């Protein structure tokens, strides 16, 4: 019996609307030209976490070519639940046709809620409890108007369907680590619209410490080195952090390039590293090894090593690539942005 879980389908979704970081800078009088990214993806006025998750999940099912009724679990990792009480997972499972014999839950762990669901899904299928399990990471992230986070907090997500490794899976997982501590770098209390963060504390003791620790542990347990990987994807809160953490761990710019999307779409929180992973799978070839390392405030990092299989070549078309989703875009100004994101309150 195989001891490895594989991915049989994946899909990403990025809304078409973009706001340029310079437009946000203009609004708040930040005239020195220093902005953390170029532009970010903004959910349309009729979009939210659930609609983004459904679109990504539908692409994943089409790519997997499976009957959605065979999906035994639908987990939605997010911090943008449209309802405080009522699972997003039920709406997603209903919309994709996975109900009623399905386990659903919303996973909460800031930006690593999606990869948190990876662990559960892989264990479900390896235990033989179900044939397929779906993990989704998606967000419509909110930044307080005028806060640094407003430049990067973006919308988007990706869905992955796990099953036991076989010749039908397009990649399999050969190692997984979760590294977690209580680190209060970012939080949102109940009934608050916007999160708070501990300024520069979000870097060294939070993002860098957790990702470096999870990846080093993965390397130790698998015996792999950075040069064994064709690609690496790190959580992308801005354009700078993933490049810096890659260097600290001994990865090159070429290894992270296909999955480094934050300069163009921003930080879609639980969707951030997963959309980057989907974009990397879009260009990967059989036998390529991919490192995926998420980071979630609060804090923790999940690190995975995936090996791409031959089936990837059959699973590219006609599902739109992440690159093509990024290239379909419409620019909006700040006033349209505040209307879309519900920041105008009567």
């Amino acid at each position, binding site marked *: 019996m195989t001891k490895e879980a594989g991915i049989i389908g994946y899909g990403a979704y990025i809304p*078409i609307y973009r706001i340029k970081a310079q437009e946000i800078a203009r609004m708040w009088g930040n005239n020195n030209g220093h902005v953390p990214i170029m532009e970010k993806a903004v959910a*349309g*006025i*009729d*979009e*939210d976490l*659930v*609609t983004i998750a*459904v*679109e990504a999940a*539908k692409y994943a099912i089409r790519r997997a070519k499976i009957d959605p009724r065979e999906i035994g679990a639908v987990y939605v990792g997010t911090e943008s639940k*449209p*309802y405080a009480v009522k699972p997003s997972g039920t*709406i997603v499972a*209903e*919309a994709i*046709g996975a109900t009623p014999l399905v386990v659903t839950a919303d996973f909460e762990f800031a930006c690593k809620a999606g990869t948190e669901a990876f662990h559960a899904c892989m264990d479900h299928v390896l235990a033989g409890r179900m044939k397929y399990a779906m993990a989704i990471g998606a967000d419509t992230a909110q930044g307080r108007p005028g806060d640094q986070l407003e430049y990067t907090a973006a919308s988007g997500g990706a869905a992955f369907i796990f099953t036991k490794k076989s010749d039908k899976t397009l990649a399999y997982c050969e190692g997984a680590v979760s590294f977690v501590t209580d680190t209060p770098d970012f939080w949102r209390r109940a009934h608050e619209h916007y999160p708070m963060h501990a300024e520069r504390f979000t870097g060294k003791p939070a993002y860098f410490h957790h990702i470096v620790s999870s990846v080093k542990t993965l390397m130790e347990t698998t015996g792999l080195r950075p040069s064994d990987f064709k690609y690496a994807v790190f959580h992308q809160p801005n354009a700078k952090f993933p490049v810096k953490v890659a260097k600290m761990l001994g990865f090159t710019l070429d290894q992270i390039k296909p999955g480094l999307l934050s300069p163009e779409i921003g930080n879609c929180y639980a969707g951030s590293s997963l959309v980057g992973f989907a974009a990397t799978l879009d260009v990967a070839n059989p036998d390529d090894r991919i490192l995926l390392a998420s980071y979630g405030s609060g804090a923790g990092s999940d690190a995975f090593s995936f090996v791409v299989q031959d089936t990837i070549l059959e699973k590219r078309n006609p599902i739109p690539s992440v690159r093509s989703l990024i290239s*379909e875009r*419409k620019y909006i100004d700040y006033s349209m942005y505040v*209307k879309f994101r519900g920041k105008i309150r009567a």
Partner: protein
Amino acid sequence: MSVPRHWREIPKRYRLIGSKCSNCGRTYFPPRNVCRECGTTKLEEVKLSETGRIITWSVVHEPPRGFERYVPYVIAIVELDDGTRLMSQITDCEPEELQIGTRVHAVFRKIREEGESGIIYYGYKFKPIK
């Protein structure tokens, strides 16, 4: 719309479930109990195509209650690739981008919300295929 009515209509609103006459093969959306063509009551549920083209459209500037945030928005008659015609909002586009015959595909979107505390009604809309 009431919560129970929304709940009853979830399969068709979420997944485009229509009905198909087992006698003459005609498909309907929303689903019907009696075939308009041949009068038979032998209709079964069918998953409709998620792609199609615009037959005609109109721009709504004076919306019914609950749709104020979305104006101006486009309502169109879409002919699906399986021949079924239905009414739908067209999203992610400006009215001037549309033409009769524009290819569209189904997307899952918020249709409207009962204020800040009420239920969120989700369902299908269509958007142009680029």
